[in-house]
């Protein structure tokens, strides 16, 4: 059905995007179902299937309703405002696992930060597209950097600072890292100012040290990252990172086979944050590479769309969305593989989490929409 929608409303869209999304979503469902069988009274897979269906529904809806991505440009500031509200809301709800990122309404709970990231990408794309010349060309030169004018950069920095502030307050390190990464990538792509990357990295390093110093939650994450096996030596047993590494190692090159691993030893969050450990243990390095390859294809198709497009907004949007997926995969997978400190986030399409799946389907819908325009052989009149 989604395919029909693509054929009908986005005939020239990139033919790889939808199959990759379906495949990743399918892998996720299978692994969640497999983990369900290890956890008594757990019905996560049917729920996830429901959310996936909703996600595909939204995918179709986006394709049908949004005939041209450029219309989104008009709603950039509204989007940014809504995103901010979505991010602030969870502060008023009780924290879950040390992070205030959930909104709980009766039986339903979702992570507004997931939806906010699309809106933020749209806002960045629209704003940078409109002001990129000003950002790139004006400003004073300090040392060998060209610093932009305050009044141009101001709104962006303000919005971004608000986001990161909220996120740090909610102790959701993963999402703030994601937004920061997105911001830096899009800024660079729009203005080609390498100096900003350096400034961005310096800022982030400062922020990281500051947060690591102040927040015990983050501090312990960093310690666990540097010494994943230390708790064993201290006689406290293996922590989640260590258990995750054990799972990956046990999988080896070929894996144990689905259902034959013991990733349940990781404890909680096996189906969400740590789902990649199950993939690694039961499908092995081979399966893991296949998954990474799918993400790489998805991301590269997104970038390719962005480069092929002609309107600055569309280009930045496609690149931003693709970068979003790439950074999120890196942050999550890097966390469970002990490459970077662990931050609670979901692996796009595979991990359990309704908000995440729905959001990612919308991202793919937008990529399909933009790619349709990018690959259309003869630009239409309104293009």
């Amino acid at each position, binding site marked *: 059905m989604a395919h029909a929608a693509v054929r009908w409303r986005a005939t020239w869209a990139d033919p790889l995007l939808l199959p990759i999304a379906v495949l990743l979503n399918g892998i996720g469902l299978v692994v969640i179902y497999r983990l369900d069988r290890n956890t008594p009274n757990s019905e996560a897979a049917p729920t996830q299937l429901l959310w996936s269906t909703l996600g595909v529904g939204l995918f179709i809806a986006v394709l049908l309703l949004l005939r041209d991505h450029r219309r989104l440009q008009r709603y950039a500031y509204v989007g940014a405002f809504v995103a901010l509200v979505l991010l602030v809301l969870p502060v008023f709800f009780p924290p879950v696992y040390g992070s205030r990122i959930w909104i709980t309404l009766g039986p339903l709970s979702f992570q507004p930060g997931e939806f906010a990231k699309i809106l933020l990408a749209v806002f960045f794309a629209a704003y940078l597209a409109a002001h990129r010349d000003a950002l790139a060309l004006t400003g004073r030169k300090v040392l060998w950097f060209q610093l932009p004018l305050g009044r141009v950069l101001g709104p962006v920095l303000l919005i971004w600072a608000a986001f990161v502030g909220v996120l740090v307050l909610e102790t959701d390190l993963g999402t703030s890292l994601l937004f920061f990464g997105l911001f830096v990538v899009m800024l660079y792509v729009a203005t080609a100012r390498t100096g900003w990357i350096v400034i961005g990295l310096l800022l982030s390093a400062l922020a990281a040290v500051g947060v690591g110093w102040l927040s015990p939650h983050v501090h312990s994450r960093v310690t666990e990252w540097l010494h994943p096996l230390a708790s064993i030596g201290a006689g406290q047993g293996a922590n989640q990172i260590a258990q995750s590494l054990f799972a990956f*190692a046990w999988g080896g090159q070929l894996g144990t086979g689905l259902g034959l691993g013991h990733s349940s030893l990781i404890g909680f969050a096996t189906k969400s944050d740590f789902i990649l450990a199950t993939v*690694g243990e039961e499908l*092995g390095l081979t399966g893991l590479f296949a998954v990474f390859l799918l993400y790489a294809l998805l*991301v590269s198709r997104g970038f390719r769309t962005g480069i092929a497009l002609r309107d600055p907004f569309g280009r930045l949007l496609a690149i931003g969305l693709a*970068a979003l997926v790439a950074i999120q995969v890196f942050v999550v997978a890097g966390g469970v593989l*002990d490459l970077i400190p662990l931050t609670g986030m979901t692996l796009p399409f595979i991990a359990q989490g309704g908000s995440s799946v729905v959001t990612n389907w919308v991202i793919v819908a937008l990529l399909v929409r933009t790619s349709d325009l990018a690959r259309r052989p003869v630009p239409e009149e309104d293009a």
Partner: protein
Amino acid sequence: MRFTRPAGTNGSPQGLPGISTTGRRAGTFCMLLIVALALQATRVQVFQKKELDHNSANQRATIQRYSQPRGNLLVAGQPVTGSAETGGRYAYKRTYTDGALYAAVTGYSSQTYGNTQLEGVYDDLLSGTDPRLAGWAVWDAVTRQQQPGGDVVTTIDPAAQRAATQGLGNQKGAVAAIEPATGRILALASTPGYDPGSFAGTSTADQAAWEKLQDDPDQPMLNRALRQIYPPGSTFKVVTAAAALANGVVTDIDAPTGAPYPYVMPGTTTPLNNDTGACDRAGLSLDEAVTLSCNSVMGYLGVQVGLDRMTAMARNFGFNDAKLDVPVRAARANFDTDMNESQLALSSIGQYDTAATPLVMAMVAAGAANDGQVMYPQLVDKLTKADGSQVQLMHPTLYRQAFGSSVARQLQQLMVGVVENGTGRNARIPGAEVGGKTGTAQHGVDNTGTPYAWFIAWARPAGSAAVPPVAVAVVVADSQADDVTGGGLAAPIAKSVMQAVLGR
């Protein structure tokens, strides 16, 4: 990854790179992130695999190990072990058909406390990880096929084992019985015993059972037949007699040995006392001295043989061997190698620092029975796969040629005398020829401890000239009996064990 250039032109003012270029760079950066993930995954899953798999906190190896029934230990073709489903994370735990009876043979296999003795030595085979069990090693590695655990076929004779355990009863002690011609161990008993199945799992009941056994002052988990050494007392006189005969110190067992009475130990003013008045005269023959268990004569003969030759003879039976593996390692039996003559005299009657495991004393009897050929004691006949096909067959091997057959014949004659006319009369078996030697060893401060009652013996059907089918050593320690003597307490146990073997 190639990104196509855009069809249209896009503003790259001031010569700054346009979005096409920066986008391509950002795309490359994102690809590098994913490549970094792949590299890290390779590092963890390939290069650190071994280290992580064997981490003490990683339960996977343990889970896998207990995911299938463990191979069995067999006695006379019947398994004396089994496996039971636990319903827990460790799927199967060890069970024992008659745990207390065979504990000294099997050892234990516990999910909490590890594996010992045969369960420990052949753990790889029993748990299925022994490479000799694999059919197609490479294919099995790819499919992660687990091999069913193999079986260990023991040499134990269930009748002899039961006779030994029942004979010891409530007394603290041990029995080791050997087939002299092959070295096969027929019985290995230690009391008080324990049920190795009582702590095989991981429950609190298992833990309580274990702690109770550990705290028991009687040390029920000590394998006294293999792992505990006792002063052998007069049973060691068989070794001294063998040394005297083999080295020509005594040539005729019925002629006077030349031992004086009283025998004052060299370098001292202390005479070596006898336990019986019948020994208190000069001119005794070796036959009389062994039959009556005369300390003065045997101490004198030990000194005549000399330290080096006494040590050499003791070594022939496993003394001073720290690596006597049957394949469970036995404790090192001791005969001092650096002593003065009075110490040598005491050592020659099984006192001073001389101490032996029941296994080694059974080897003494077996060596005498098997024409001086001491066979390497072994507890296992063969190892098999789960389907019964052979993995390894144990062949009888010679441990030491202790002396020639003429010395052996004389020694046998001496030992038969002990049972027929001397201190070992309780071991007489109708229709069988039995040779033995008693021992009552002093121990404790000023010899105040309850003496160890010893008896070593061999037996064969009457009129047979074949190698006796059984040799046995019995030690009873801390008995409640009033009059502790080897002949009174230990000989009847040895007799019932030998009867069980002869009655097969």
